[in-house]
């Protein structure tokens, strides 16, 4: 297995053997197109990790936008068998069609990704800016090798036009501008027992993350509450209540964690600024499958678009429920009513508890990836190998999603209801995404 950095270095150097390289030129360019898309997405995962604005909901939106961009580039080049998402995704109109024949897919993809990534990650730090410039330069050189200059120029411009079209579409969705990393400058806490309270000692996080995110325009769902949830168990401090019982379950689970449970909790922890975030974890899985199975460029672009839409909509649905129910986190309740010294294994995220965001978006991701690749599609997950967490193997996407969801109980940051109902909510979101038609 190649590590992320080694893999990328090899791609940039043109050393990864590309199956079919000796076949037709079209096959050669398709493999290069796929590699360009893979490489940019590898960089996107790093930029998500290293750009402070990129909390999981914001990251999910960027994955959706870059994924749709990639798909629309390729759909426009083969409209006979690839169907644009225009008219299917909310408010998306048809992107510019190629104005002349002879568009090279690899150069167009590079033009689109370079423009798109620079836009969505314009506020990354100096190292990210430097990396984007270096990536742009190296891949531009790579896609131009052996190609006529006018073809390259035309193709790069076409890619940029498509990227710009998607950017303009996304500007009106409500998620374009994220201030103060998504934390309101002022916030009035809920006044009832059981409402969310800050759990962090960081000043910014005394207000919850992105309370207005449910107002964003969904992509495949008709509305933010299209996958609404029933209420969690009624808040109670009575020992026999379902709420208290679920809190005790969190407490006892954390106190008696096995080594395997700790590993699972950390594997799916996916903390912002320390990982590519939960949606990035699923993107990383997809990239690894692409590499393993030598997927063609259009399969990758299709999957990136649909997976991106799924996790993006999942966060809108999830956040809608979070601020509807405004539920207290386990650490707050347990310290107050069970054990003041309780320490969850994971960092408690700074926003209401119900439902679990990772569960919702993992449910959606599993639904969409299962629709693309099939049931019982086994894969290895190497997302965190570079961080010292060993590879995990899953028999199916649903198995992975279930592990991601239960990891939040092991981590001590969610009650069971948030986990189970979150997964169901994600499935609901996935069903909307699975209705999108891409290949025809």
């Amino acid at each position: 297995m190649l590590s992320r950095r080694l893999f990328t270095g090899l791609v940039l150097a043109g050393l990864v053997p590309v199956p079919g390289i000796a076949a037709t030129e079209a096959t050669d360019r398709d493999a290069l197109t796929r590699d360009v898309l893979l490489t940019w997405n590898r960089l996107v995962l790093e930029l998500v990790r290293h750009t402070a604005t990129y909390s999981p909901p914001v990251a999910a939106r960027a994955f959706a936008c870059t994924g749709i961009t990639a798909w629309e580039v390729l759909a426009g080049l083969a409209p006979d068998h690839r169907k644009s998402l225009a008219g299917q995704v909310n408010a998306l109109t048809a992107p510019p069609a190629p104005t002349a024949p002879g568009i090279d897919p690899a150069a167009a993809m590079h033009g689109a990704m370079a423009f798109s990534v620079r836009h969505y990650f314009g506020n990354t730090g100096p190292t990210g800016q430097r990396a984007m410039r270096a990536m742009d330069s190296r891949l531009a050189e790579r896609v131009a090798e052996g190609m006529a200059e006018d073809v390259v120029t035309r193709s790069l411009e076409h890619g940029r036009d498509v990227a710009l079209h998607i950017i303009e579409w996304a500007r009106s969705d409500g998620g374009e501008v994220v201030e103060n990393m998504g934390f309101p400058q002022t916030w009035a806490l809920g006044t009832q027992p059981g409402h969310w309270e800050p759990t962090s000692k960081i000043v910014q996080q005394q207000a919850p993350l992105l309370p207005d995110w449910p107002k964003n325009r969904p992509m495949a769902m008709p509305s933010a509450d299209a996958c609404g949830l029933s209420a969690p168990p009624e808040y109670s401090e009575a020992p026999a209540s379902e709420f208290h019982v679920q809190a005790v379950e969190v407490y006892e689970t954390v106190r008696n964690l096995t080594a395997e449970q700790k590993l699972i909790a950390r594997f799916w922890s996916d903390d912002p600024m320390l990982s590519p975030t939960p949606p990035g974890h699923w993107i990383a899985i997809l990239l690894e499958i692409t590499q393993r199975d030598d997927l063609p460029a259009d399969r990758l672009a299709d999957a990136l678009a649909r997976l991106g839409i799924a996790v993006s909509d999942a966060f809108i649905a999830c956040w809608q429920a979070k601020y509807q129910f405004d539920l207290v986190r386990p650490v707050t309740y347990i310290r107050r009513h069970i054990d003041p010294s309780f320490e969850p294994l994971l960092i408690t995220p700074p926003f209401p508890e119900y439902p679990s965001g990772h569960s919702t978006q993992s449910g959606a991701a599993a639904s969409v990836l299962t629709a693309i690749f099939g049931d019982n599609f086994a894969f290895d997950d190497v997302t965190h190998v570079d961080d010292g967490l060993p590879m995990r193997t899953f028999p199916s996407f649903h198995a992975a999603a279930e592990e991601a969801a239960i990891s939040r109980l092991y981590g001590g940051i969610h009650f069971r209801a948030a986990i189970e109902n979150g997964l169901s909510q994600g499935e609901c979101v996935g069903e909307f995404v699975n209705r999108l038609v891409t290949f025809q």
Partner: protein
Amino acid sequence: MIRTALALTVLASPALADAPEVPRFLAETGGVAHSFTGEWEYMVGGGVAAFDCSDDGLPDLYFAGGAGAASLWRNTSVKGGALSFERGTSGAEVDAVTGAWPLDFDSDGKMDLAVLRQGENMLMRGLGDCRFERANEAWGFDGGTAWSTAFAATWEAGQPLPTLAVGNYIDPLEEAFPWGACTENWLHRPEGDRLAPPVALTPSFCALSMLFTDWNRSGVPALRISNDREYYKGGQEQLWHLQPGEPPRLYTEAEGWQRLRIWGMGIAGADLDLDGYPEYFLTSMADNKLQALKAPKAAPILPQYADVAFAKGAHAQRPYTGGDVRPSTAWHPQFADVNNDGRLDLFIAKGNVSEMPDFAQSDPNNLLLQNADGTFTESGERAGVASMLTARGAALPDLNGDGWLDLVVVNRNAGVEIWRNQGTGQPRHWIAIDPQQPAPNLHAVNAWVEVRANGVTQRHEITVGGGHGSGQSGPLHFGLMDAPDAEVRVLWPDGTEGAWQTLAADRVWTLPRDGTASAAN
């Protein structure tokens, strides 16, 4: 249950309790004209070494220059008067310098310099009269070729020379994928009268600050490292065992070490709560930490810390003036008693990394004055040091010998700023202590100096390292409030307890290990 609406600005400030006296700082560069310059390769670093190389009792200043040359400025101030400096020709005016720390490597009584660089690091032997010569070869120091950003030194028991730790940052050649490209930190231990080839402190996680500190008062300092999570994979803050004659070894979770992952930029240590154990301030971006031992009375003491920054009003997580409400970026932290009230205060140098729009661009330096109840009150603006330039390193020496600590700040791509502390308007007392022992370790690094006055015992550990790119040496300063004298003793690095002596305030005292204290002025 009664809960109230939360006003963030109120929560960020603890209740004022016995508000501390605010010193008045006067901007006065004294003729110093220097900038730490450069682009991406110099986004971190930018330090100053404050130490007396001219033997006149006043600290001189050596500045890192980044892409430009470093420079040394001789302190020509008149005692108690305005600040003035003259540019010297020291032999240490090399380029690519990120930081510098003074230490008397060969214990000859002349301060030497550890100079960290983007490229080969250098040990500069002090020749006296603020002149230096390269000593890498003479002392067996392998300067490497890395991007070096952190330094610390200690004298291990029985060794004639210090042990040096050098923290290294990213591999600058990794343009497109620099993340995860942290290079190895090095530990240089003595071998006879030279340094042995360095040992890699692996795993290394892009260190930006290192400090040898006796965190549990065991008598053997450990190496604390603050790491930049922006670039490591699988990393965290670190604490290394360094037992004489044994390989360095990381503290583990089984020993109580708790994982912490921040944008670690600088370390400052001091016994703030007077319990005998140091607290540590760790600078970061939006989440600075003030760490206090959870159970200092436990046996054994575990390296487990509670973050009390928020509770004590020392979080300094966003600008307090200027209208920019985005989170802050903190670099050099330093504890020092700037108002001579007997309580350590905290200075934090602030400044955006480089056009990071998620973080404040107008990010004033902090001067957090400690209140009587142990909380802190932000006083940077009232004190006159709320500069909006892009700060990195700093030092708080007494530049004109008047007993009020002054402030030197190095800015990135902007001029150095120096402020003269004009005092609080109140006739507060102070004392400065300079312990000395026979070679090796002439200046008693990792000794503790204790000062009893006003019914409390203040303790300072003598360290070489920490901060951000910056270090200072010289007498340890203690504020005494109204006390005309103080009892003083030294706990020497080998554990020997010096005798208590009563010394008059408002003096700089040299304390020989086996002799009588003498006042320098």
